[in-house]
């Protein structure tokens, strides 16, 4: 069974204080690893897809990296508007079925 574990559960940063969120996974043949951002009362918003170990993607203050066992979401010089829950999910090679298996998320709070 595919599993995703995210750490820490919650993280409080001051504005400008860089940090990383961790996503450890086990999957029977990785098709893709996804990062989403979820604000309170809203649906998950797509950020990145990573497909193979060594791949990196960037968007503004966020950078996602992937190894064979885990992914990191690096946040550089965060701002209060980066406060949200960050969800990691894996998709396995299972024919036409393409469900995402999610972790429980990391709640990030960025203060002034």
């Amino acid at each position, binding site marked *: 069974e595919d599993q995703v574990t995210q750490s820490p559960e919650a993280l409080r940063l001051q504005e400008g204080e860089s940090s990383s969120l961790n996503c450890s996974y086990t999957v029977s043949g990785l098709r893709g690893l996804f990062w989403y951002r979820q604000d309170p009362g809203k649906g998950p918003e797509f950020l990145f897809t990573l497909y193979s170990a060594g791949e990196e993607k960037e968007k503004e203050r966020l950078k996602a990296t992937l190894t064979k066992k885990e992914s990191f979401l690096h946040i550089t010089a965060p701002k209060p508007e980066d406060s949200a829950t960050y969800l990691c999910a894996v998709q396995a090679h299972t024919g036409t079925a*393409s469900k995402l298996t999610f*972790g429980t998320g990391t709640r990030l709070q960025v203060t002034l």
Partner: protein
Amino acid sequence: EAGVAQSPRYKIIEKRQSVAFWCNPISGHATLYWYQQILGQGPKLLIQFQNNGVVDDSQLPKDRFSAERLKGVDSTLKIQPAKLEDSAVYLCASSLAGQGTQYFGPGTRLTVL
């Protein structure tokens, strides 16, 4: 481009009542998903449609949950009868193809009393 639409946004019902949720995916997206997100957890897939056919419903509690996508566009998820443990946010997502990026709607928050 319009995103995934869902209604209602909120619903409160008594246990043993029935409820239905509606989803309209992004135009042109063949694949539609329903996820359940319990407070403090990540979303969990309930059912995946490819056009109007079911691809994966292995985690759908079929004794009380049903879903349909009759014309390959809109979809409805129904719970009958509801239990207390069904209180959650029900998210609809869509993608161009099965392997494509999934885009989520705002969700329907269900409270069962």
